[in-house]
């Protein structure tokens, strides 16, 4: 799908992005879900923990859940938590990972070897496992704990990508020139190396956001949450699972929101990845 047939240097990255169908579709879906998560709480017919009727009744669009809360209202309130935690966890993971990866690539030699070996250790943990292991010793984890854990589980994966991208840049002439001019190492990284990594890193951030949403929802689904009564798409699945046969919407509504959200972010990430490679398939 060569929607970007233009010569590589003329239009800017974002101008080209606007012409890419896959990216625009994913981006639009993502924005819509985010807008829903942020603004729906203001128009929800019932409060977050307000009882609307008997359990599993047919009132309202989606009926009521296992304790009689309105499913539609819970759905409208439940997005903010997932959204905020996923975005912050992605940010933490990206910053840590880029830092590790660029330092390894720029430091080179012995630094590179040691950092990447330690990175392999973290990579041996499936992402959800890293979070679960720490949650063993903690009861009702606070939101920042979850953000830190998910961010930490992203970092080694981001670091590997960032290192790969940075390796292709640190040996280029303009970096060598900046070093020859006597620039400080930190300044070379910030001013010369990082700006040239934006394309692939944006794509990676999109991918990480997809996984963050999945893990946040998964932790809620497994019942590890700061506030057990709060509306949260992951927790809603957990609470109402046993009533799936009687009141499917109480589970399916949050499930579909997560599915749509992740499909949107993943298409967006893949569109960005294609743009940054200027490849055509």
């Amino acid at each position, binding site marked *: *799908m060569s929607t970007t047939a233009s010569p590589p240097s003329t239009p800017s990255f974002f101008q080209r992005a606007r012409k890419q169908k*896959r990216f625009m579709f994913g981006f639009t879906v993502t924005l819509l879900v985010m807008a829903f998560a942020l603004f729906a709480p203001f128009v929800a017919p019932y409060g977050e923990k307000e009882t609307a009727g008997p359990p599993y009744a047919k009132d309202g669009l989606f009926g009521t859940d296992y304790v009689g809360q309105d499913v539609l209202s819970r759905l409208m309130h439940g997005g903010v938590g997932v959204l905020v935690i996923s975005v912050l966890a992605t940010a933490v993971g990206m910053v840590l990972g880029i830092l590790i990866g660029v330092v390894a690539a720029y430091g080179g030699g012995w630094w590179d070897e040691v950092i990447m*070996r*330690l990175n*392999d*250790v*973290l990579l*041996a*943990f*499936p*992402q*959800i*496992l*890293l979070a*679960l*292991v*720490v*949650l*063993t*010793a*903690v*009861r009702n984890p606070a939101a920042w704990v979850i953000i830190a854990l998910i961010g930490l589980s992203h970092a080694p*994966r981001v670091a*590997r*990508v960032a290192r790969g991208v940075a390796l292709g840049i640190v040996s280029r002439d303009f970096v060598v020139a900046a070093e020859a001019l006597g620039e400080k190492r930190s300044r070379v990284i910030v001013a010369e190396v990082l700006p040239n990594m934006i394309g*692939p890193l944006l*794509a*990676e951030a999109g*991918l990480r956001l*997809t996984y963050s*949403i*999945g*893990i946040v*929802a*998964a932790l809620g*689904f*497994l*019942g*590890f949450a700061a506030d057990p009564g709060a509306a949260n798409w992951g927790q809603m*699945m957990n609470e109402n*699972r046993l009533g*799936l*046969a009687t009141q*499917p919407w109480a*589970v*399916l509504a949050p*499930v579909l929101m*997560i*599915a749509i959200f*992740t*499909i949107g*972010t*993943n*298409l967006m*990430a*893949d569109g960005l*990845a*294609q743009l940054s490679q200027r*490849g055509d*398939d």
Partner: protein
Amino acid sequence: MTQVAILPDPLAEVAPPRGRSGGAAWAIWLARRLGLAVLTLWLVSVLVFLATAALGDPVRAILGRDYNTNVGRREQLEAQLGVGDSIVTRYVDWLSGLLTGDFGTSLANQQPVWQQISDTVVNTLVLVLLAALVMIPLAFGIAMISAHYRRRRPDTVIQVVLLALAGVPEFVTGILFVALFSTSVFHIFPAVTIDSPGGKPWDTPKGMVLPVATLVVAVTPYVSRIVRATLLEVLDSDYVELARLKGIPESVVMRKHALLNAIVPGIQVIALQLAWLAGGVVLVETLFAYPGVGRQLVDSVRNHDVPMVQALSMIIAGVYIVVNLVADILSILLTPRARTAISS
């Protein structure tokens, strides 16, 4: 293709030793790779121990409000975890236990950990193997169809569908399957695995269908997309063009020239996905109440059962390391270029 970018290159590990015969070079390479695996496993054990024993207070988490009132139980738990000793002593005790096959005693029911784990490990292995057996031919089949119609309508549709599926978390697919096939639309398969004491979960094959299907849907997209990308790369190459010009039929070109070259990247991505499955089973097993390692891990985390969590996470991380090791060795053996890089 972000997934391609993160595939490790087995050649990167290889520093071709000069002036030695093939066999010696092989042995050195293998020893180095094994040494790295052991080193990684050891660092993993340090990390697991610190994360479970040093970060929080498991005793407080287990007892909750009873922490101050139930002094007897508190002291008993603290004695069992060895809370009074220094962290280094406790780690060394735990590690030497692991090495001699003693995984400790569960806090939740005071049974030896190994006795509870041995059955569930087998259950999970069966689940993962079944998923892999379905996934590998399916992923290669889809990739071949897609590469056959490359950059035309069927290919585009397949790629967009795969890409969409790739992002959806596995338990979300699982819940949709349950709603579709067992509770809301059709009533074909049971929503949970039937776990009779003494019996095996595969005694009722119907109960295995949905867990396996969920895992297959979770991993097929990645494998299929990478195999397709490799196939396309090969199909565009000069020697395939030459084969076509010689008049070899397209199906033979696909099978003999393209597919064989896609096997090595295929093995690597399959290994990555199998390793991913080691963690992916956590959610799928919990969803379907499948009596495996993943569900046991979640239950143990809920009970703050430190020795169980430590043993289970060591097993999962160990599987990951071993799978990657095997994949690296296999892809070196199957790549002539890499073989000569080592032994020449």
